[in-house]
């Protein structure tokens, strides 16, 4: 079912299975038929762990969305709330429970906190007088979700905002906990490297937790030999730049959420012969994107400019495969051909889908606006005229382009110039306020608070040094047959990737100067392996685990 998770160098299905097992165990604790009331935010991440069929096997008959008022009626024995530990949700649950009791008294209530139970929330339920109504109050530790064969994600989109704007490090605590779970399943990771305040904090918590868990030392041979923790604020530039890989562009344009993308339906209408395309579907087309799909696995990380060629090559292979049937003479050959048919048909429909998506994207990437925007981004990244008001940005504001685009560009300029001159900054800010409304003064304040936007304090701009030392800009990026990571942004090599590369070889000692320029401390920790595992380890292949806090930059 989730075979693609086991293809990578690390079998992430172990993690997924552990998560599923725990879910099943909880569901079985509540004997009888069940209805789940969902904190809507959780449905996406849960989809990566368990489909409805699993829930159904355990007598889940109804699913509702958590909202205030009365619960919808359902003939079930148990009502289970799946919620994040948030006070406002507790109030809703309390209301649900209050309204409910008057109608049926025989239903049992349960709460499953995701990812962790909270004393504060239980206290709140107690204050509301409903804590006693719950038979089971449990936690479902869902920190690191296996997202793809080579990717774990916390699907915690507000983490950057919480850490840097609100100084709330809950997400870091969950990160540390998640990494502990990971180590429990895949062995203690002997080396930890990191850069940035939050990374330091996560590492500290991990070491602390290791002390807490002392004694239950696991005897698993480490699968990972290095863990690298990177703060998002070490590399603010990368998420500001427009992604240029196939998957990146799908995300830029349509947004990928929990592994799914919603696309405009027109391109995907089934064109059946002799049927007028009267009723085009109006619902957006929802597609799951992961490496389980062979073609997608092949092209997802290609620069978009190389996707066309890959698709047409694939098309040729598939039609050649279909042509094979003419060569099939003997019964045996025909039988073999037929047995391959389902696979080939799947490949063909996958090809059709991605060709449609590529066409949709191409319409946008070939537009002048896209090109102009990219040109400005690349100018900033190469350090051209980053210290004055940019005419393109000015014009874009005058044209009332989407605010997010403006903010991305302005922030990028600020990052590439180590802050903007007060005059330039004020000019941009005034333009934004006058055009998009005064309420954005809060948006701008927030951006300044997290450092995405800042006035220049010293005349020295570190960015060029960093760019040169880490080779962030490669003039001759090869988009078709890449030999360097800079192909993903057609020239720009993401800073975080460069840090990872340098760490692997020759080591961070060679870039001490640059590391000092980047915010936060850099560090190295070693975790003692349980005795007895040392000797065995030598024969193992080494495998690094990069764990960057890839936090999205949500503005506002």
């Amino acid at each position, binding site marked *: 079912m989730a075979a693609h998770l086991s293809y990578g160098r690390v079998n992430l299905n172990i993690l997924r299975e552990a998560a599923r097992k725990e879910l099943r165990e909880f569901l079985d604790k509540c004997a009888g038929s069940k209805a789940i009331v969902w904190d809507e935010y959780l449905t996406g991440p849960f989809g990566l762990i368990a489909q409805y069929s699993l829930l159904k096997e355990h007598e889940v008959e109804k699913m509702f969305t958590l909202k205030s008022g009365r619960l919808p009626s359902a003939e079930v024995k148990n009502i289970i709330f799946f919620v994040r530990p948030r006070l406002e949700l507790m109030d809703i649950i309390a209301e649900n429970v209050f309204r409910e009791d008057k109608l049926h008294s025989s239903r049992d209530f349960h709460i499953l906190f995701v990812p962790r139970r909270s004393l504060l929330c239980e206290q709140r339920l107690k204050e509301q007088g409903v804590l006693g109504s719950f038979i089971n109050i449990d936690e479902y530790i869902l920190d690191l979700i296996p997202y793809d064969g080579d990717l774990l994600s916390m699907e915690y989109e507000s983490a950057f905002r919480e850490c840097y704007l609100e100084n*709330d490090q809950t997400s870091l*605590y969950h990160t540390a906990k998640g990494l502990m779970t990971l180590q429990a399943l895949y062995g203690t990771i002997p080396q930890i490297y990191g850069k940035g305040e939050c990374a330091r904090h996560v590492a500290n918590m991990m070491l602390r937790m290791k002390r807490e868990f002392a*004694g239950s030392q696991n005897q698993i041979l480490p699968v990972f030999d290095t863990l690298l923790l990177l703060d998002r604020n070490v590399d603010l530039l990368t998420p500001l730049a427009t992604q240029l890989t196939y998957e990146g562009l799908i995300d830029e344009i349509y947004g990928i959420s929990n592994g799914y993308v919603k696309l405009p339906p027109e391109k995907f209408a089934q064109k059946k012969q002799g049927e007028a395309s009267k009723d085009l579907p109006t619902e957006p087309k929802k597609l799951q994107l992961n490496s389980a799909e062979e073609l997608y696995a092949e092209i997802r990380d290609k620069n978009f400019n190389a996707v066309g060629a890959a698709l047409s090559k694939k098309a040729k292979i598939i039609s050649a495969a279909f042509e094979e049937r003419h060569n099939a003479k003997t019964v045996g050959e025909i039988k073999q051909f037929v047995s391959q048919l389902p696979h080939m048909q799947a490949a063909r429909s996958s090809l059709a889908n991605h060709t449609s998506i590529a066409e949709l994207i191409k319409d946008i990437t070939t537009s002048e606006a896209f090109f102009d925007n990219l040109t400005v981004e690349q100018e900033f990244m190469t350090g051209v005229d980053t210290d004055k008001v940019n005419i393109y940005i000015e014009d874009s504001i*005058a044209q009332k382009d989407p605010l997010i685009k403006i903010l991305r560009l302005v922030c990028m300029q600020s990052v590439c110039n180590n802050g903007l001159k007060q005059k330039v900054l004020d000019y941009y*800010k005034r333009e934004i306020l006058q055009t998009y409304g005064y309420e954005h*003064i809060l948006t701008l304040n927030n951006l300044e608070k997290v450092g995405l936007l800042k006035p220049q304090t010293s005349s020295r701009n570190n960015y060029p040094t960093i760019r040169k030392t880490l080779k962030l800009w490669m003039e001759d990026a090869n988009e078709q047959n890449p030999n360097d990571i800079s192909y993903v942004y057609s020239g720009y090599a993401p800073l975080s990737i460069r840090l990872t590369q340098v760490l692997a070889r020759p080591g961070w000692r060679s870039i001490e100067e640059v590391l000092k320029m980047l915010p936060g401390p850099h560090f190295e920790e070693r975790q003692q392996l349980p005795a007895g595992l040392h000797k065995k380890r030598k024969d193992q292949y080494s495998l690094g685990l990069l764990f960057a806090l890839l936090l999205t930059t949500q503005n506002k």
Partner: protein
Amino acid sequence: MAFITANWNPLGEAFYRKTELYEMCWTLRDGLRDSLVAAAPYGGPIALLRESHRRSPSSRPQLEIYSASGVAIASFPWKSGPVVQLGWTVSDELLCVQEDGSVLIYDLFGSFKRHFSMGQEVVQSQVLEAKVFHSPYGTGIAIVTGSSRFTLATNIDDLKLRRLPEVPGLQGKPSCWVVLTQDRQTKVLLSNGPELYILDNTSCTAVCPPGLSPQAGSIVHMSVSFSYKYLALFTDTGHLWTGSSDLQDKLSEVDTKKTTTPKQMVWCRRPKSQQPSVVLMWDRLLMVTGVCNDTIQFPIEDPCVLVGELDGVRIISSVYQELLQEVPLVCQDIFKIASMAPGALLLEAHREYEKSSQKADEYLREIKEQSMLGEAVRQCVEAASHEYDTSTQKSLLRAASFGKCFLTDFNPDVFVSTCRELRVLNAVRESSVGMPLTHTQFKQMTLQVLIDRLVYRQFYQLAIEICHYLKIPDYQGVSRVLKHWASCKVQQKDLSDESIARAVCVKVGDSPGVSYSHIAAKAYECGRTELAIKLLDFEARAGEQVPLLLKMKRSQLALSKAVESGDTDLVYTVVTYLKNEMNRGDFFMTLRNQPVALSLYRQFCKLQEQDTLKDLYNQDDDHHELANYYVTASYREKRLDTRLSLLQSAVDEYNKAKNEFAAKATEDEMRLLRFQRKLDDEKGAGLLGLSLQATMEALLALGLHKQAEQLYRDFRVPDKRYWWLKLKSLAEKEEWEELEKFSRSKKSPIGYLAFIEVCMKCNNKYEAKKYVSKVTPEQKVKAHLAISDLEGAADAAIERRNDSEMGAVLSRCSASHQLLIERLNRARAAAAKK
């Protein structure tokens, strides 16, 4: 080795032996006479209370506690009321049942732990007799009172008193009684004259032991076996009836020819017993009565106490302690004279081998011919485990080891574990430790319990050595010992907090599974709060640390520990606690010193208590956040005047925060709002809340050019943006004349290409053309292309000799523009030459 069988006595098919365990270390002035004695099974401790002067108030009886080997552990004068019965709990605590029904619990070292009562009515009626018993539920107590009523408590740690129904015709105490545990129920079996009753929770049933001869008389003594499975009844005519305790089957009936009631009667069995027996003790005689009607008689000189064990009976006298048990079958096989059992032959073979005699080979051959060598080794190993004498153990194990050499695929596990276990057993049997455990008992009680019991006795060193020796994982072994040790250490009143904390830390260190908070809680219980805090410092798990700190009212410390842990939920918990405990000022001050907690609390306030948020910012003089707060608040406000006054507050705060830009921007916003209201009032324009740009746009759309112009000047809108705005607006309204006029009003800051593009967007090529001549030379080609004038574009491009521009024109050409293409190609070639 004939001497091994010297103390064997045949009983039916089996043999019984009496092994000396200890020469007792104590010196008892009056022996065991006239004393209440309680000795715990499994080689547990012995408690003694002299009865002689019990009733005299002037001399208090002495309560003494000894190890099983007679080493004094504690001794103190008994100051409470008269004691009816002593007994030990499963966790080595001493129970003293008093006449008034109260039960006092002491630990091994004689310090009082707690007490409870067996019921109010007992105070009046008094306890006549009491029994302490053990069941799967723990340690229980049963009493019979002066009013002939029984009361039971099955588990003293979870005290539930049950008063059993009345027994018909019972006056005073019954002639004898026992507590039975059957089918998860605890019952009392009692005899009153000729009658025998079973007493359970609800009823009292008269019963009759099957097959008891009618002439046997009335039952005067009874005993139930260690496992509660068998029952022995002694009648006043000297008949001993044995059978199952459910009174369904009879084993035997023996006439002991003794009509006096024995002082003690105890079952002597072992698991897989061949010949179970009952041991009866009179003043000068010990009689072992097998169910086969055979008896063995031992004379005794001194008053003794019998202690029933799982696999025998311990006999404690004032001088010696002996173990009476049925000789295990395997030992019989090996040591029985002229035994031909494989184990016996192997032992013999090894003995010859040691003497370098070739007979060794003969014996071995004999065993191997029967392919019994494996069995022989197994027998020797098993027999060793049952032997108490270390030299016998050694010779058996050596023989086993010798035999093992001739076996290729023998699993050594049992041999190895038996060697290890025997070593441990020999260590705890040492007189100084005094736990005379047999191997069978040890297996039954488990190593965990043995370690616990060593720990109760404070043999920490030995316990730890055993853990290391048996390689028990730390968190099951050493850590548990250290935990006990530390909990005990913190109670030492003569040491300073500092030195105890240091000692604990040095010993416990980072031992896995030792909870410092558990130790700290102990210290806190003993009233040593300071010590508890010092110890909590070592606790790694904040989840454990913080609640205890709160309980000890060290909320500040709890807060900083919670913050350290990184667990925000914990921080919130402490913050909520503090909020309720402290006055607001102190609370804010506390938070101020903990930035992490403060920002979390701010988040909480943002969602739950907006007003508190304001107070927080105020207290911190955080003008910037305060200003932001006012701005946010202004958007929640419907009435414009309130909104403006909130914005004014924001301006003030931004000024205080020296954020000139924001202050200015806010003032502008206020100005804009007033302007919008004025126009809305005057013209109903619906402007309120729009951005400046949108306002100008709306004004232009409404044709209010003058007002738009005014805003443009008042708010110093950059020319470029204003021109774009006006250009688009005029084009949208198709006011072409107006547009042309505007284009001439001054030199366009956005150039003229924009005019062309906007006109083309409105599909007005005619108007667009008007501006082509005005564009800068660089934009000429683009301008021509915009209006699809390829000729013009070509001309311009060729004139400018710009290759990329010519290329751009070419890319727009189709086959119908053959001439143009040729011209361009020529020009390109020419330009390239230069």
